[in-house]
């Protein structure tokens, strides 16, 4: 690291401050809103005049029938299941694409890219009809499948890049050392690709967690409705009050799992794990 002059240091601090302010102000505003009572919610003050937790408590009133608890469980489960399946499938695919020469390799990559570029809105209509016919409408599976479709290309592309970074000699060394291809993959290649696997996992999880379009279209009840969709169904305390505070509180709550998820895994995403494998 080269040391910077005090002037440059000050400049960087200022620049970072501006970026942070720009990025965080909406979030802070949301937090502020979530602590306001319906009476003061539109008072345009940043610091709530009367701090209240009512917005949060009402979200969970009534246990499993509460507005947020079921959707939260749905969201977490669906996103986690989709992530696990997508990352597992994508590791195998990416490994094959990075290492093996087989007919149709470019076709798979091109196909994955094509799917990733497909506008979601163009498939929800047909999916709605198909799911209703197949009985997948308003189920977890009904959401997991489309999430996989769109998350897999993302995961495959990320992982292919990581697998390509791993020197092929390592695998050959493992083979010579007596490893079966599966052992070489599991004991040598996969541990080295961990940062890539976690990167892919985070991307897939965020995609599934944040989705609104599929969630609102393919669900009709709390059986499978996820948080983003559930937010749209919040009602105020009476038909004349807007549910602004509740929505803000729920929005703050859905942000928390993402932050935890990223914080846990970003420690695993350290570059340079392959340092020392080969000379250089």
């Amino acid at each position: 690291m080269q040391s910077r002059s005090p002037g440059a240091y000050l400049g960087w601090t200022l620049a970072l401050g501006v970026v942070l302010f720009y990025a965080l102000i909406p979030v802070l505003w949301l937090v502020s809103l979530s602590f306001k009572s319906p009476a003061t919610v539109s008072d345009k003050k940043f610091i709530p005049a009367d701090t209240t937790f009512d917005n949060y408590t009402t979200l969970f009133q009534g246990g499993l029938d509460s507005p947020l608890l079921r959707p939260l469980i749905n969201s977490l489960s669906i996103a986690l299941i989709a992530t696990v399946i997508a990352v597992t499938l994508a590791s195998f695919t990416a490994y094959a694409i990075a290492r093996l020469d087989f007919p149709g390799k470019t076709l798979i990559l091109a196909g994955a890219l094509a799917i990733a570029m497909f506008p979601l809105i163009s498939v929800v209509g047909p999916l709605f009809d198909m799911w209703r016919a197949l009985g997948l409408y308003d189920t977890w599976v009904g959401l997991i499948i489309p999430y996989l479709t769109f998350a897999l290309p993302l995961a495959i592309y990320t992982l292919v890049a990581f697998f390509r970074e791993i020197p092929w000699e390592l695998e050959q060394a493992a083979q010579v050392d007596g490893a079966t291809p599966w052992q070489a993959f599991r004991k040598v290649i996969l541990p080295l690709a961990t940062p890539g696997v976690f990167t892919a996992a985070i991307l897939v999880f965020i995609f599934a967690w944040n989705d609104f379009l599929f969630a609102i279209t393919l669900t009709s009840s709390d059986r499978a409705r996820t948080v983003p969709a559930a937010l749209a169904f919040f009602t105020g305390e009476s038909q004349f009050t807007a549910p602004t505070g509740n929505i803000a509180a729920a929005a703050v709550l859905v942000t928390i799992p993402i932050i935890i998820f990223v914080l846990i895994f970003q420690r695993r995403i350290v570059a340079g794990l392959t340092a020392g494998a080969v000379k250089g």
Partner: protein
Amino acid sequence: MADIKLHDITKRYADGTEAVKHMNLEIDDGEFMILVGPSGCGKSTALRMIAGLEDISDGELLIGDKVVNNLAPRDRDIAMVFQNYALYPHMTVRENMGFALKLAKVDQAEIDAKVESAAKTLDLTDHLDRKPSNLSGGQRQRVAMGRAIVRDPQVFLMDEPLSNLDAKLRVQMRTEVSRLQRDLSTTMVYVTHDQTEAMTLGDRVAVMRSGVLQQVDTPRVLYNDPVNIFVAGFIGSPAMNFFSGTIAGGKLKLPFGEIAVPDGVSHTGEVIVGIRPEDFEDARFAPANHPAGVEFEAPIEVLESMGSEIYVYFTFQGGEVSSDELAELARDSGIAETPSGGSGLAVARLNPESEITQGQRATLWFDGAKLHLFDPSDGSSLKRGRQEQQAAAEATAEAVDAEQEKPPPERAAAAQDDSTAAE
């Protein structure tokens, strides 16, 4: 421990290029065999075929009298050291070295004992719990060796294991490898492009060029009696000097004098004459009354004093040699190492007490009895028994022709293929 037999082994890639052509080689049990040649000559490919990392297109490979063509690397009982070491970065030195034993489900106590003892041999005991990224180049290299020796395999395969080390360490590790092989007396196949390594390490050395085996023999025979101009130019540093000469009426005419044709040479007409640098001498220090000695005068272009010896580069007129083999050598090793690759410059090694100076016209001497004569048409030696070399020369000529018949883009692709294979 086992012997290795390569019967007519060929490696052909999907595009038709042949990296290794009809290679026949028998490596005895416990022998230290070196495969040497310029980059892209197929030596690494040959090694990787023995390891099972490359498929064998044609021919038969036997390890310990068992055909292993279709065996996976793990079933061949071999250990390999890679050029870039290929250590597992997520494992400690101990885990790296014990990995193969662990896969073989060896008892943990036994693994520990074997790893400890190998670490002791290689002076790695203090580093057993470190990760490869915290080791120096030399230490990593030793870990790679350690990983191979704990296995106690039938065969060691080494793919340019020292080429990533700096010069001093390389010499040190060279001695180490040599000692190790003697102690273990395990069959070892060692690939290198460095002829010094080949000469100092091997029991026998196999010289390859464009996928064809040129000569397999002890370093001494390779040096004194090369089968063709390629082997002659490749082995020895500084390299052999080549001049063109003519044989007529029992006399051999050289750019710097005439001598009697050596015994056993029936060839007449154009020849290529090879003289090793040490067969020259300052005329002052030439042995008196040497029957075949010839004195001549030459302008000294460059003088390099090494302390124990002096190298002088002198120019000569009208005897430059150009041949495909020499061109390839020059390309591979840099023109400096083959001064006579058509450049009209020759190198001589002189007695360190010589008072010859740069720029001077000096009187030099050479030993006419130690000339090497080569046929200009195919580069084969004219002095040796012709049978075996003829075969090699024909195979090479065929291979080179085949290469040249291809349209240029395909050749470029093939060359690229070769180089990736060599890496």
